[in-house]
């Protein structure tokens, strides 16, 4: 679908929605749409990312196809979000990666694994990939600490800068001027609570007509991911300040956080994929579904390879598993600016704008 068509299509559909308003109770998007009598490009990018894809409005709508009005808000919103992800990808030349997410994820993960494996072979010799390593600093006999740190920093900075540049342009294009302590606070609360996956109390329309399972599973993924990040940071802390070298004992902070987070992530991602596989496809956009599976796939691989590394770290497989895990993580970071990961960023910005708009309306 062309971008112009998306704007015209959303304008057409929201004209019906604004006359109806029955879906007002599901989420913030309909309230925001009512403030707009005609939809322009900036409105599309804003409203599409304010939509949390709970799909309740599809289930509730008496005008869905084959009705002449052919209303399907979740599908057009999903298409518009794919458009946002591609348009605000930086550098913009790489925006086309958004269109082929599975190949991109697979290729980067494989390239990552190959790079790490080659690095290990170069540093510690090819046999290190299947030789047991034990004792403090075992991992650093496979890869030098400085190289690991530099690579991790470089990837993180690259991803953060790309995402930040896109976010800046996105915020400008949807109107700007909405960032304040109050609007950020509201947005943060709504983002962490996943308020708009509640469907006004009904949940999400997925396998069943309305259920809370997607919101719950999303919570598992989010907090699992954060726990894994925290595990990494705590490991760095133990190393730098307590001078304890990895691998850490099972009862240590990094391992407990990492294991708990990994299990939550693995279960949450698997659950989300299962729900998606059994959901009604009519309110979906196939390109968004492809982005979802590509991101879920990398997350699941990250979690499972991390858990495998922990389970088999004292065996001969440690070298190969380290290469696989670090390679997948590298793939996750490199593709983050060009895949579903960015939904969190644009949605948070849209929530912030909505908080600002609603506060102004109330004032």
């Amino acid at each position, binding site marked *: 679908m062309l971008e112009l068509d998306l704007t015209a299509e959303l304008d057409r559909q929201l*004209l*019906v929605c*604004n*006359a*109806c*308003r*029955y*879906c*007002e*109770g*599901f989420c913030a998007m309909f*309230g925001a749409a*009512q403030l707009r*009598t005609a939809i322009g490009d900036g409105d599309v990018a804003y409203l599409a990312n304010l939509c949390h894809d709970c799909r*309740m*409005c599809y*289930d*509730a*709508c*008496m*005008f*869905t196809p*084959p*009705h*002449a*009005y052919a209303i399907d808000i979740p599908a057009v919103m999903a298409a518009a979000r794919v458009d946002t992800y591609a348009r605000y990808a930086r550098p913009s030349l790489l925006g086309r990666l958004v269109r082929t997410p599975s190949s991109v994820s697979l290729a980067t993960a494989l390239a990552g694994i190959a790079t790490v494996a080659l690095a290990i072979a170069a540093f510690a010799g090819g046999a290190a990939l299947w030789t047991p390593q034990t004792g403090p600093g075992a991992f650093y006999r496979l890869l030098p600490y400085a190289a690991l740190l530099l690579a991790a920093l470089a990837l993180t900075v690259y991803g953060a800068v790309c995402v930040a540049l896109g976010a800046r342009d996105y915020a400008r294009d949807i109107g700007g001027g909405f960032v304040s302590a109050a609007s950020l606070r509201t947005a943060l609360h709504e983002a962490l609570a996943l308020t708009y996956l509640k469907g*006004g*109390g*009904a949940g999400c329309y997925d396998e069943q*007509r309305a259920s809370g399972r997607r919101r719950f599973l999303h919570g598992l993924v989010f907090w699992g991911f954060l726990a894994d990040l925290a595990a990494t940071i705590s490991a760095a802390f133990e190393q730098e300040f307590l001078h304890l070298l990895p691998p850490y004992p099972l009862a240590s902070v990094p391992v407990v956080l990492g294991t708990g987070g990994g299990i939550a992530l693995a279960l949450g991602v698997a659950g989300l994929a299962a729900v998606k596989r059994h959901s009604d496809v009519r309110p979906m956009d196939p390109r968004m579904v492809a982005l979802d599976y590509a991101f879920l796939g990398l997350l699941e691989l990250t979690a499972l390879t991390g858990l495998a590394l922990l389970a088999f770290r004292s065996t001969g497989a440690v070298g190969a598993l380290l290469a696989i895990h670090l390679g997948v993580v590298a793939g996750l970071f490199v593709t983050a600016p060009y895949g579903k990961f960015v939904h969190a960023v644009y949605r948070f910005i849209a929530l912030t704008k909505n908080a600002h708009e609603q506060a102004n309306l109330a004032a």
Partner: protein
Amino acid sequence: MSAVSEVDVVVCGGGNAALCAAITARRAGASVLLLERAPVHLRGGNTRHTRDIRLAHAEPNAAATGAYPEAEFFDDLLRVTGGETNEPLARLTIGESTNLAAWMSEQGVRWQRPLTGTLQLARTNGFFLGGGKQLANTYYDTALRLGVQVEYEATVRALVGADGRVEQIVYERAEREERVAAGAVVVAAGGFEADVEWLREYWGDAASHFTIRGTPYNTGIALKAMYAAGARRIGDPRGLHCIAVDARAPRFDGGIVTRIDAIPFGIVVDMDGRRFYDEGEDLWPKRYAIWGKLIAQRKQQSACAIFDAKTVGKFIPSAYRPERADTLAALATRLGLNAAALERTVAEFNAAVKPRQSVRLGVLDGCATDGITPPKSNWAQRIDTPPYYGYPLRPGVTFTYLGVEVDAQAHVVASDGTPFENLFAAGECMAGNILSRGYLAGFGLTIGSVFGRLAGTAAARYARA
């Protein structure tokens, strides 16, 4: 023809009243078969287009704010029907409505705050989350979970029986005739507003210009089957609730989004470009309720609402943008009106608007015209600020009042005045017993829910006795 199956209670219809009956009968232990004429994605009849239900309550509850005493509810009903109602049935409905919010919640229905633009209903009406299709979806889920059998695309053809009893239902499904033997039958299949030929019997050719706001499946087939079985008619056959809708609306099923809310803000002219009724007579909802019939009586059953740039954004928009032009003459052309006639009408109207009035919307502000027929009694302001706007209007039929007489247990009454033993009616096909004319927002669902539950209870009791 397949073998005749047997079931305790057959419910004909698939909207709110039918579902309330089916769930209630099933919960009372009866085996229940529900025959819905529509395919699954269009199930739910006109319930799909509803959003709120009128409920009496002594104190705030999950559904509504404040208190809405039964006496006030009854007064509201008398006001809209001009005092004409079956008082015992009306009082029964209003009394039973006090239990509905809790019962609906038990079936899984969720409530929300009143929608934008409907604050005046916050106290009297409960708004269910997501509107009427969501309500129907919730009821279907509950009914199916309880073990109600549902057949879609099943059209009732006849109620077969004798001596005040119905023995069998004949229905059609996938071009096959089916029969089911029923212990008791509940008919809750709506009115006949979607049968334009039937409307034509009372409205002549005008009926072919009516827009039907609801489901195309409400053609009154089950109503006719009840008459054929000997049920007593009630209600004015010409009676229909009819509002002004956008002429560009689809012939059927446009629901709430085709409603034109702009009338009090400008003037309305017929296709000769002449005004014909006081656009500022009264506040919501009367202003909707009268305009459908007014337009139905004009040439081609058509009219146009005309306003100017001053009132843009002051009313709830419809699903169609108004026609727009920089001059009245150009606007007239777009709307199919004679340019000179529209200019003359607007000039006369503008000259009659008293000077130095400041219009206040939302109250009867007394800003009236002077020396013009018909007058505009409130919100009269000159139409003089381009661009000019216009909506083409048609009558949009919401529901019909014609039905069957029922008693306080929802038994259908036969033409000799005795109730059928095992035939019950609920919803639009009997609402005329109580709401003989006029309109009270959310009251159709109240009647349907109360009588659906009464019918389901009595039908299950009879079938299992």
